[in-house]
Structure formats: C-alpha cells, structure tokens
C-alpha cells in the first residue's frame, strides 16, 4: 500500500526544535563549560535513570510525529485519492492495538465485555450474559481453563526477552559511575517493553474505553500531546524571555520600564482566565473558518499549537524576570566592564558575555517548566480550554473516564492508565530537573 507523507505544523516545529538541539550540541561539543555539567547530570544516579525514562517518552513522541495518509484506490478519472485519516509511524507500529476495537468497556486482560448483553446461545435460546470480546483473548478456546496459563507463558517469554535485551546492553552501564539506578531503570523499562510486546497483541492489557478503543493505545498516543505542550511552548517562551529579560536588565532605564510594565500587566491578569479567554477566541476562529483545514488532524494540530503559543505568551514573564535580575548583576561584573573598556559593541557583549552566563538559568527553568506544562494540559483540556476534544491527550482521557467512576462496578482502568503514564513522565521530569539544577546552579543547592 502506498502512502504520502504529511507534515503537520507541529511536526515542522518539532523538526525545528530538534535541529536547534542538534546544532547546539554540535556547536558546543568541544566546549568544556557546556560538557562538564552535562556529564555531571548523566553521572548522577538519578540523572541517567530519569534521562532514560524521558528518552523512552521522547522516542514515542517522535515516532508519533512522523505523519502520513494512506493512498486509496484511484478515483474514477484515475486521479490519486488519499484517506482523510492522518496516521503516524506509531500508529503503523501499533496497528494491532489501533484496529482491534471492541464494542465498549472491557477491563484489563478481560476476555469478556464489561456489560451484559442479550446473547443468542448455540441452542437458539436468548440469555443475558457477558459476551466474549472480539479481539481480547480471542485465541483462547476455553477462557476459564487456558487464561492464566496463556498469560503467564506469554508474559514470561516477554519478560525473558526483556532481561536478555538488558544483558545485551551491559556495556552501556557497566562502567558508569552512577550505574546501578540506571541499570535498574533500564531493566524495568526493557521488561515492561517485553511484556507489552508479548501480551498487548493478544489482550487489552489496560482495557478498553467507552467506544472499545484500547486504552494502552490511547495512553501512548497521549504522550505526544503532553510532550508537545511541554516543549513547543518553549519556542515561544525562549525568545521573549531571553530577549526582553536581558534587554531590561542590561539596558535599564526606559527599556527596563517598558518591559517591566509589559510583564506586570500580563501578570496582573489571572493566568487561567487569560489562557481560557485566548483559547476560546482561537476556538471560535477555527470553527468559523473550517475551510482552512484539510483534515481533522490538521485542525486539532492548529488548536494544539495555538494552545502552546498562548501558554508561551502568558508564561514568559517568570523567566524574563529572573533573567532581568541576572543581567542586572552581570552587567556590573568586571569582565563585562573589561569588555566595555575594549570598546566591544553592545551586541557582542550581549552575545558573548551576557547570554552564555544566563543559559544555565534558562535550561533549569525550561526543565522545571516542562512538568508544569504537562500537568497544565490535563487540567485545561479537562475544563474545556485545552487541546481539541477530538485529540487524544491525557486531559481528554481523564475527562472521558471521570464520570464512569459512578458506574458499578467501577471503570477504573482508563484513569489508572492516564495516571500511570502521566505520573511516570512528570516524576521523571521533576527528578531530572532537580539533577539539572544541582549540576548547573553554581549556588549548589544541596539535596
């Protein structure tokens, strides 16, 4: 089957971000003042372990950012026709999960549906019972007899595969100073991966949602949304915070007054209110101009970007204030005075003396903000001012699952899955942020 790659706006920005990161690393690869803290982050017990977890998430997110549409049979005039459904590499990888849709809810590892239905038995009589799932455990002839044996066998094989892969990775962690937590995290990651590979094609390991979609699939798809909110926002925050913050601190006077006025004004508006208002305005715009978007994916994508932009536009003030204070301090420092005594131009002083000496603050603040943004997405989506309701995200997952807690028995797995995936991501991000701050902050805050 042939396909056509699709480049969504967010994919483009991800590429830009990736290019920036790669270029930065390439440019600074010989710079000891850059490499030393990096090494330090990775040498700390939690640094390497959390970096690994974040790496897994990023890999999922990147896979989910390679988009394409499938080619349909040619139209009557022989022109190429494409499906309106935009898929990603992750979708292709998870095809079994994506396509095995049940009728409605089913619990993790269930072989039968959550709700009773009227079934017609082999003898033609009608009974009220839990129907078998179409896909989950469908290969089992007798679910009561074979279930545990099958799960244990497959699970055992998967876990074994994970352990073998872990042993193969031995050279990766054998000589690391902070090897043990890293090795343990790697082991857990690989075993979980092995289990999923072995079990997920045959069971709904995290159950299914109201319309029968696999919850594991939904959770994995939510990762990209969370990551995008956490990272693309920085594309807006960085230039504003760095530019305005440093300018205010270094130039002082009128420039400072103006920039301070700007951020006091922005700060004075209650944050959620401003974001909510802005998102609604964007939403109305999107709704009144449906012709601008070729596919549903493009529409949700633009809404997502708009959310990032809004979060960025309202979120730069904290970092800017921090950088202003730092620039104020730096401009009086003697190496800046020495540069001025040489008649070095302002632009050059800003670029060579100010900027490199505040970059650690920028990095620290970025990693700290990241987890906050991931959490904010969930809340905003929940309230209805986040990402498009049609987009798979943690907030929408929780939103869809929340009311089902009232059911009897409780439909808990959707919430549990969202909780687990978010918690691991945010916890890893928080711990990573701590390590980065410890490594980069010259004040050396102790644990």
């Amino acid at each position, binding site marked *: 089957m042939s396909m056509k790659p699709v480049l969504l706006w967010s994919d483009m920005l991800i590429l830009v971000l990736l290019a920036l990161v790669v270029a930065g690393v390439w440019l600074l690869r010989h710079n*000891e*003042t850059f490499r030393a803290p990096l090494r330090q982050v990775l040498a700390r017990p939690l640094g390497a372990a959390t970096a690994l977890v974040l790496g897994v998430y990023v890999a999922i997110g990147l896979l989910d950012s390679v988009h394409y549409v499938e080619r349909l049979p040619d139209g009557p005039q022989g022109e190429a026709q494409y499906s309106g459904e935009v898929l990603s590499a992750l979708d292709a990888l998870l095809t079994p999960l994506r396509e095995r849709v049940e009728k409605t809810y089913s619990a993790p590892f269930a072989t039968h549906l959550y709700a009773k239905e009227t079934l017609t038995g082999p003898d033609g009589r009608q009974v009220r019972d839990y129907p078998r799932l179409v896909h989950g455990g469908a290969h089992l002839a007798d679910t009561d007899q074979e279930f545990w044996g099958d799960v244990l066998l497959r699970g055992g094989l998967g876990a074994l595969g994970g352990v073998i892969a872990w042993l193969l990775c031995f050279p990766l962690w054998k000589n690391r100073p902070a090897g043990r937590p890293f090795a343990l995290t790697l082991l857990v990651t690989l075993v979980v991966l092995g289990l999923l590979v072995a079990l997920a094609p045959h069971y709904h390991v995290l159950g299914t949602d109201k319309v029968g979609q696999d919850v594991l699939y939904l959770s994995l798809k939510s990762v990209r949304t969370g990551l995008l909110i956490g990272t693309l926002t920085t594309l807006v925050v960085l230039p504003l915070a760095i530019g305005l913050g440093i300018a205010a601190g270094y130039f002082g006077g009128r420039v400072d007054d103006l920039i301070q006025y700007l951020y006091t004004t922005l700060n004075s508006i209650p944050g959620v209110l401003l974001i909510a208002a802005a998102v609604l305005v964007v939403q109305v715009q999107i709704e009144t101009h449906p012709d601008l978007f070729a596919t549903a994916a493009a529409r949700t994508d633009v809404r997502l970007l708009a959310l990032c932009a809004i979060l960025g536009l309202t979120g730069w003030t904290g970092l800017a204030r921090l950088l202003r204070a730092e620039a104020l301090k730096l401009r009086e*420092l*003697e*190496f800046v*005075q*020495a*540069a*001025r*005594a*040489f*008649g*070095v*131009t302002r632009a*050059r002083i800003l670029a*060579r*003396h100010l900027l*490199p*000496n505040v970059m650690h603050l920028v990095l620290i603040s970025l990693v700290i903000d990241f987890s906050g943004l991931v959490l904010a997405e969930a809340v905003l989506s929940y309230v209805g001012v986040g990402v498009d309701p049609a987009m798979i995200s943690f907030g929408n997952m929780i939103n869809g699952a929340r009311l089902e807690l009232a059911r009897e028995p409780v439909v808990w797995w959707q919430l549990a899955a969202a909780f687990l995936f978010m918690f691991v991501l945010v916890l890893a991000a928080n711990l990573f942020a701590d390590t980065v701050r410890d490594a980069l902050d010259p004040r050396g805050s*102790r644990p």
Partner: protein
Amino acid sequence: MSLTVKDLRVEIRAGGRTLTPVEGVDLVVGRDQCLALLGESGCGKSMTALALMRLLPEGGRVAAGRVELSREGAGVEDLLAQPESAMGQVRGGQLAMIFQEPQTSLNPVMTVAEQIGETLAAHRALTGVAARSEAGRLLEAVGLGTDKLDAYPFQLSGGQRQRALIAMMLAGEPEVLIADEPTTALDVTIQAQILKLLQDLRRERGMGLLLITHDLDVARDMTRGPDDRVAVMYAGQIVESAPGQALQAEPRHPYTQKLFAVLPRLERRGQRLDSLPGRVPVLDGSSAGCRFAERCPQVFERCRQEVPGFHGVAEGHWVRCHLADPEAASPADSQGRGVESAGENPPRPPFGKGGSEAGTPILAIDDLSVHFPIRKGLLKRTVGQVKAVDGVSLALAAGETLALVGESGCGKTTLARAVLRLIEPTGGEVRLAGEPLGGLRGEALRRKRAQMQIVFQDPFSSLNPRMGVGDILAEGMAALLPDLDRAGRARRTAELLDQVGLPADAAGRYPHEFSGGQRQRIAIARALAVRPKLLILDEPTSALDVSVQAQILNLLSDLRREHGLAYLFITHNLAVVSYLADRVAVMRGGKIVESGPVEQVLTRPRTDYTKLLLDSVPGQVLPDK
C-alpha cells in the same frame, strides 16, 4: 583556665572524596594569652576554629583529637565528647567566636539589643530590663553608645557591626574568644581600632584570644606580650610555633621565612620580591613526607619520604622541619639563610624614572567629578547628589606609577571607571596623551581605548567563565587592533601568555582551571593585548595571598620596565604603595587630600588623615614606625 587542642583531625566529604583540611593540630590558649594562628587561604585555620566550636559545615566532621577546656574548680572536659545538647552552654558561654564578614554575620532583621539579649538569656538568664541595661553596658564596653541598642545591622557601618558582634559574644562571658579574620573585611583605620579593642578586652577580662589571620603584621602587633604566641599553619598542619617576638626575630621554618620574605616593603623598593612558586597540595591524604616539600627552596631527599616531626629550636620555639632536627645532619651548611633573595638580584635604582620626565603627561585628569543624583518623592525628582568623585585633578607621566590610596567608599574605583569612560563623568576633563577624551564617540573613542586598559581586583569575576583564555585575550585585539588577522591574534596571544608567565597551552583552557594568581596574570595579559601605554590597576593584589601578591608585583615591575608602562595603581595597601609607587595621591570623600612623591607622603605626611592612615597600618611596614 585554658583551652587545649590535641592532635585535631578534621575530615570533609565532598564529591565522593574525603579531604583532610586539618591534621594533627595541637594548640594551647591560656588565660589572657593571645595565640595567633597564621596562614594563607586554604591552610585549614578557619576549619580548626569551627571544629573547636563544633560548627563544621555539612559534610565535615572531627575525625580524631581532643578539645579540652579546663577551668579552676571544674576540672577538664573534652568538648568533643560532650553531647550536642551540652554544647549550647559551651558555645557563647565558654568559647565564643567572631567572624570575618560583619556584613553577613549579624541577623539583618533583629536589633542589636535583641541579638545581645539572646546570649544573655541563654548564658546568664538575664531578661527584660536587666538584659537591656547589661546589653547597654556591653555596647559601651566595645565602644558603641547605648543609642545603638535599637539599631538594626543595616544601620551600622562595618566597624560598628564588628563591635556589635564582639559585644554579642562577650555577653556570655566566655573564657576564650576565637576571632576568625576579624578585621580582614575592614578598612585599615577601623582595623586598628578593632584590634586595639580586642587587646583591651582580653586584658580587662583575662580572656584567652585565638586570633586567626593571614596577615603577618596583624599577628605581629597582637602577639607582643611575653606569653603571646604565633602558630603558623600550612596545608592543614602547624609547621612552626613560637612566642610572637621570637618568630618575628628569627623565623625557622622555610615556609615562615618565605612568608616574611615575600612582603613588599619600602626598603625592598627596586628589588625583586622573593616568591613562593607552586600551590598548596590537595589534602586527600596522598602525600608522603613533608607537605611543603614541593615548594621548599631547601628541600632534600628526606623531606619527600618522611613526615617531619616537631623539633625544639629554642625555648618554646618548635618547628616541623627536618632541617631543625638536631640528630640529623642538614644537607645545607647554612641553616636556610639562602631564602633571603635580595642578593640574587642586581641592585636597581630605588625609584622609577617617572615624575621627572618633561613633556605631556600620558594621563591628565582635570577637576573631574562624578555625581550620582539622589531621587526622592512622587516624581522621583533629584533632591541631591552623591559626590563620588568631587573635583579631582591628577597627572601621570609616561612610565610613572601613581598610587591612588584611600579607604572603601572614597571614590577611587569610581574615579578609575570615569577615566575609562565606563561611567560618564559629570564634570571636568580627562586627557590622554594630551587629547581630551570627553565628547569622543564611536571610532575615535575606540582608538583611544587601546592606549589605556584596566585590571580589576577580583580575579574570579573579571574573567568570563564561559570563554576560553584564548578568546578572552583575543577579544580586545579583535575590537581595537583591526589590522591583526586571526593568525596574528593567535601569535600575539602566545606572546602575551609567555610575557605573564603562563604556559602556552593556557589559551585552550577555561578560567576555572586556574588559581587566583594565574587568573590575575590572564587579566593583565588581556589588558596588555592592545598595547596600552597606561594601565589602571584597581586593587590588583588585594584578593590574593601574600606569596601570590609578590609574584604579581614582580610581574608588574617587569612589565613596567620592559614596556615603559604607566600605572595608575588603586589600592588601600600602603605596603604595596611603598614598594611599587613613584608618587602617591591620598583620596578621601571624593577629593584628593594629599599627593606627592612616595617617600615624602609616607614618611612626612602633611595632613591629619594621611597620618591617621599611616598610624593605623599594622606591623613594621613603614620605616618610621
């Protein structure tokens, strides 16, 4: 009453390593006795003091030793064996400590009376009116009026804060007072007052005083009494211990001898100062033998193999050196007299050529003023001015060294920055080689900048930590010497590193890899890069240890001779002035109060302020004292 420290060993865990900043230290401080613990930065003297108080920073612990406090009728107690709960009575009550930084050592949100009251409540159960009147008495005892009782620390000057801190520590009537560099952060006139106060207090109260200092002259002034002693520390160990007078008269350890030999003095003008190359070894327990061996001019085989023990060389005079071992024949006949290095240098004329030279001065400052407006009120109107520099006129001939002397806040640094046009002057004129700088803009100003450069005080903040040394040196060339291409700049960088005595591979390294003295060399090389005629040196050695200071002063005199540089040397250190400068200008409150040739100003001062400055200088810096 006495405080006895036996075989003290302190360990610090940092970054997975265990360092031993203090090892095998023995001390005794008796009643009304002053023990000066003397050493350069990083020798472990502050750690020793904190260990006595059991106030070591996190990660630090006392690994071995005893700290005994004996009192009449109370017997001997080992402080290190006490539970932490008992230390509350010891700290402040028996052992008290004052610190270096009066700016930060007082709680900023409590009044002086409250802070003294806390000690009174803890040790003498005094509260309320009784505490207040006692606090008032204590303040008077340290030379502050009772009107300062309700003052907050920010309302006091540096010297007043140090007095308040002393009052706070006296409140518990301690038997021994530990003073950790009590005057290092203070101006010289204030230093003299505080030192005198400490002397008086210990006599009146019969206190023991453990004075920790890096300043030989302070140690000398404070240990003039017959019972007073000096202990010299190096790399975590005491290397020499002697009565104060004996140590001054005849230092026996090669390190102590070096410490005396590197000091700048008027009588050493024109001579090369002796220097002490190398650095203090890392104290991770890896060194065998004598810790000073790597830097010792008289090192011999045994020093590297065997840790030297203490040997008595005179009554009460002990040295940790193999040379002093009476049982072993020393390899050198002369007992280390070789350190006096004056003989190695050909005698040079004691004074530079400056001053006498006719023609246009390289720098002429005429009635220069820098005023900062004070804004107040609703519309921030200017209601007054701080006259940081107020009508200063100075002239500096080519190749001449003019020292600008003054205490903190006198406007000397502002003056330097105004001369460089880093701050816009409010009035007056600066002429560089006859051409006025005022009003110059852009390219014209830039060309002038190549003729004068500046070296700052703090070797840590004066180099951009994110730039390689090569880039730091090339920055000025790129801006001011447009004729040089990249290769030319690299050539000149190598040349400069050689001139200031740094290895050629330094260009590829970053500032944090260098010590304070090396950084100061880099800063000097950076200034020299654009071939200036005039260097403004803003306290270039005051952040450095004396042995490093000597190296930098030597470098500065070499450069002056080789390149005919003129220096505007800003400093508060009169010893350095007497050694290096041709002429002196004394500054106070933004004005020049006196100026003239260095010998005349230092030996026959005309104004009271200069006299006060000179009288306040500790030790025997100046010949007349």
